[in-house]
C-alpha cells in the first residue's frame, strides 16, 4: 500500500544490492529519511524443518548446520542438545570440553565475519575487512585440524563428538590465540577508536532496553542494549559452568554498542578456549547411542554468535525426529530492524550500518 503522504517513494533495498545480501528491505523514504522498513523474507527458504523429518539424527546435523553455516558449531550444538534433552542422554565430560572449544572457535570465526562486514558497510573499502578475513584463516585451520573440515564441521553427534583432540592441537591453538590477541589490539587501535567510524555508528539505530526485550532482539543486539541475557551464563550448558568468563554487555544500544559487544565477546572466547584447553579432563569422548530413540519432547537453548537459538524436538520412537521447530535469532533481529524506523531517525545512508550492526544471517531467518 503506497502511503498517501506526498513525496514518499518505495525503494527496494533488495537482493540485488552490494550491501544487502540475499534479502530485500522495502524502504519507504523521501530520499533521505526512512519512514518504514518492510522485510521481505523467503529468498533463501530451503524448508530445513521438513528435510530433518526425513533424516536420521546423525544425518540431520549436516543440513541443520546450513541454517547459519558461518557459526556451524553452535547451531549444530542446538540440534544435538535438543535430541539429548529429549532422550535424556548424558554426554561425557571430555566431550563437553571439546564441544566448548569448537563452539568458541566458531563464535570467533562468526564475530570476525560480522566485524568485517560491519566495517565495510560504513563505507569505502577499509583494511579491517580484509584483516578479519586473513585472521579467520587461522581459526579455520584450527577447526580443520580438529574436525577435518573448515566450515561445516558436523562434528557433534548425540552422545558426544566424532573424534578426539589430535596431538599438537593444544600448542597450535595457544600460538594462534596469542597471535590473535595482538591482532585485536590492532583492530581496536585502527577501528574501534576511529573517529569517523564513531560518527557513523554512535547514536545511530538506538534500541532502548525495554524495546529490545519487548520486540525480542537476540544475542549481541540484546546485550548491546543493556539486557543481561547470555545462554552460556543462563543454562551453563556443556563446560561453560566450570569456565569463568564475563558477559559482554553495553548500555547505549546503538550500532557502536553492538559492535563493541561482539568485540568483547571475541576476547572472552579466547579466554574460554585457553581455560578449556588447560583443564581438559581425560576419559571417553563419545557415548554409544542407539539409532532409535524413545518417545519424548526436547528443548534446547544455545547461545549462537547471532543470539539465542531455541530448538524444540519431538521424537516418536523411530530413528527420525517427528517435528523440529527452530526459533532462529536472525528472524527476530530482522523483525527488530523493521521496527527501528519507528523508534529512531534513520537515513538511507544509515541503513547498511544499522542492518549489519544486527549481523543478520538470512539463511537462518528463512530456515
Amino acid at each position, binding site marked *: 500500500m503506497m502511503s498517501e503522504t506526498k513525496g514518499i517513494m518505495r525503494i527496494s533495498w533488495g537482493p540485488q544490492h552490494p550491501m544487502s545480501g540475499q534479502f530485500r528491505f522495502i524502504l519507504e523514504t523521501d530520499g533521505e529519511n526512512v519512514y518504514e522498513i518492510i522485510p521481505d*523474507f*523467503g529468498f533463501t*527458504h530451503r*524448508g530445513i*524443518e*521438513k*528435510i530433518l523429518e*526425513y533424516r536420521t539424527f546423525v544425518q540431520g546435523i549436516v543440513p541443520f548446520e546450513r541454517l547459519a553455516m558461518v557459526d556451524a558449531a553452535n547451531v549444530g550444538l542446538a540440534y544435538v542438545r535438543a535430541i539429548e*534433552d529429549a532422550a535424556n542422554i548424558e554426554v561425557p565430560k571430555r566431550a563437553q570440553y571439546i564441544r566448548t572449544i569448537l563452539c568458541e572457535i566458531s563464535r570467533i570465526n562468526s564475530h570476525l565475519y560480522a566485524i568485517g562486514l560491519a566495517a565495510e558497510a560504513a563505507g569505502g573499502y577499509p583494511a579491517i575487512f580484509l584483516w578479519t578475513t586473513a585472521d579467520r584463516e587461522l581459526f579455520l585451520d584450527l577447526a580443520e585440524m580438529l574436525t577435518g573440515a573448515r566450515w561445516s564441521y558436523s562434528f557433534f553427534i548425540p552422545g558426544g563428538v566424532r573424534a578426539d583432540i589430535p596431538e599438537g592441537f593444544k600448542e597450535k591453538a595457544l600460538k594462534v590465540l596469542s597471535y590473535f590477541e595482538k591482532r585485536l589490539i590492532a583492530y581496536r587501535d585502527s577501528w574501534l577508536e576511529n573517529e569517523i567510524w564513531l560518527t557513523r555508528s554512535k547514536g545511530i539505530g538506538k534500541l532502548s532496553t525495554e524495546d529490545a*526485550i*519487548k*520486540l*525480542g532482539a537476540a544475542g549481541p543486539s540484546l546485550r548491546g542494549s543493556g*539486557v543481561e*541475557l547470555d545462554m552460556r551464563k*543462563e543454562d551453563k550448558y556443556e563446560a561453560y559452568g566450570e569456565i569463568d568468563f564475563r558477559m559482554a554487555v553495553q548500555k547505549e544500544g546503538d550500532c557502536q554498542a553492538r559492535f563493541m559487544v561482539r568485540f568483547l565477546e571475541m576476547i572472552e572466547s579466547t579466554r574460554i578456549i585457553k581455560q578449556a584447553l588447560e583443564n581438559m579432563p581425560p576419559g571417553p569422548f563419545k557415548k554409544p547411542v542407539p539409532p532409535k530413540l524413545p518417545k519424548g*519432547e526436547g*528443548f534446547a*537453548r544455545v547461545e549462537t554468535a547471532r543470539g*539465542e537459538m*531455541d530448538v*524444540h524436538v*519431538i521424537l516418536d520412537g523411530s530413528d527420525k525426529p517427528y*517435528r523440529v*521447530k527452530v*526459533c*532462529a535469532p536472525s*528472524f*527476530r533481529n530482522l*523483525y527488530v530492524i523493521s*521496527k527501528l524506523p519507528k523508534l529512531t531517525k534513520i537515513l538511507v545512508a544509515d541503513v547498511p550500518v544499522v542492518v549489519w550492526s544486527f549481523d543478520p544471517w538470512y539463511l537462518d531467518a*528463512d*530456515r
Partner: protein
Amino acid sequence: MTWSEEDIIKAVTENFKELVTESKVLKPKRISITVKPDGLVSVATFLRDSLGFDHPLGAGAIDYPAENKMQMVYYLWSVSKRTIVMLKADTPRDNPKLPTLSGVWDQMNLHEREAWEMFGIVFEGHPKLERLLLPEDWEEGVYPLRKDYKLPER
C-alpha cells in the same frame, strides 16, 4: 521474591481455572501450559502483563494427524523470572482456527503468518495473513509442513 515454576503455574491455573487444560513443569526453568483456543488471548495478556513474560522467542505449529489435532506452541521468556513458558493451544485438524496473538506480542504476527502458510491454521483477527517464506506462485491449499505432504524423493 523469586518465582519458582510452581508459583507461576498456580498463578495461571487460579485465574483461568476452566481455560487451562493441562500445565506441567518439564524441566527446571521450563513450563508447558496448554490452553483452550478461546482462552488463549486472555491467558497470553495475563502472562505478559502480570507475570512479566514480555520477551517472545518464537512460535510454531505441530501436526498430529493421529489424534486429528494441530498444536500451536508459543515460546515466551521473562527477564525477571528467567523461566521459559511454552503456551500451547490445540485445534481440530480439519479446519484449524485460532485467535491471533499479534495483539499481545507484535512479533507473533510473522510467526503466525509462517504457521498459516506451512500448516493452514487460520488466525482470526490477524492484520495481514499473507505468504511469508514460500514463493508467491505456491498454489493455494498445499501446506508443506503437514505430515501428509510428501517430500519428492531425489
